[in-house]
């Protein structure tokens, strides 16, 4: 399955979901649905979060998995946290 695009290729704004389809019966639901904070992150960040949860939240284990140093993983996590905070702030209340 292709990656979910999260930003507009024209103006870089966050995209919203307009149509959802059931792959089994073909039923379609249309409307304007926002993306969750996690879904709004770039695919590589989502992958990092999945690996991080699977590593029981261990940065040391993540560093071993990715073949990078501990501070590199820590910095990557900080970047993702900053993106999540920015996405939360952008969310309409």
């Amino acid at each position, binding site marked *: 399955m292709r990656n979910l695009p999260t930003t507009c290729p024209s103006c870089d704004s966050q995209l919203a979901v307009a149509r959802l389809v059931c792959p089994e019966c073909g039923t379609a639901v249309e409307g304007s649905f926002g993306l969750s904070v996690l879904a709004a992150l770039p695919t*590589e960040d989502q992958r990092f979060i999945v690996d991080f949860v699977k590593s029981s939240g261990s940065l040391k284990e993540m560093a071993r*998995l*990715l*073949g*990078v*140093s*501990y*501070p*590199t993983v*820590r*910095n*990557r996590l*900080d*970047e993702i946290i*900053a*993106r999540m905070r*920015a996405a939360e702030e952008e969310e309409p209340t």
Partner: protein
Amino acid sequence: MTTDIATERVAGQRPTLPDLLFRPFGYVAGAQSLALGLVAILAAGFLGSLSRTHFDGVLDMHTGLVARRAFFFGAGLIDWLSLSVVLFLMGKLASRTAFRAVDLFGTQALARWPTIIAALAALAPPFQRLVAGLAAQLSSAVPAGGFSIPAGDLAFGGLAGLVAVVCLVWMVWLMYHSYTICCNIRGGRAVGTFIAGLLLAEIISKLALGIALRA
């Protein structure tokens, strides 16, 4: 959002030679870098004791010192500790995120490994002859015909000096890289606090080494 070069490296990618030479701390930090770094500092101290080359300050390298062997080892350790402590405090002030002391102290120790090459260059016999000749001539009156140094020794001495300068510049880059990675600081804030830290650590190390040499 912009990302740091080192944090952009992705899983499964083996570090390239330029990565290992100029951005090693994206791959090694913590206790491993501390152990390797201490070995490098002591190795540079040992080689320095053979060539009478000492690192008398965070950024200094001089040759021709007559001192106990312990001073050559101690100088590297004092330089390392001075900068690490100052950068740790700078990091605590400037960084917005938490970081581990062992990463900063370890990578700062490993950042000093180019001093091994600098000490090795100073160990070469032509360089030793050049230094001994210069010292002898400078301690006496200038002869009428001026100083006479063999051209080969002069050329090699210049080359060894160039190698030492390159190694010191490389070492400073590695120190900066360690600081930005370990404390997660970037841009002007990183440059400014690093330069301030370097100058402060240079003064502290000079004072500490002066005390150590008199002891």
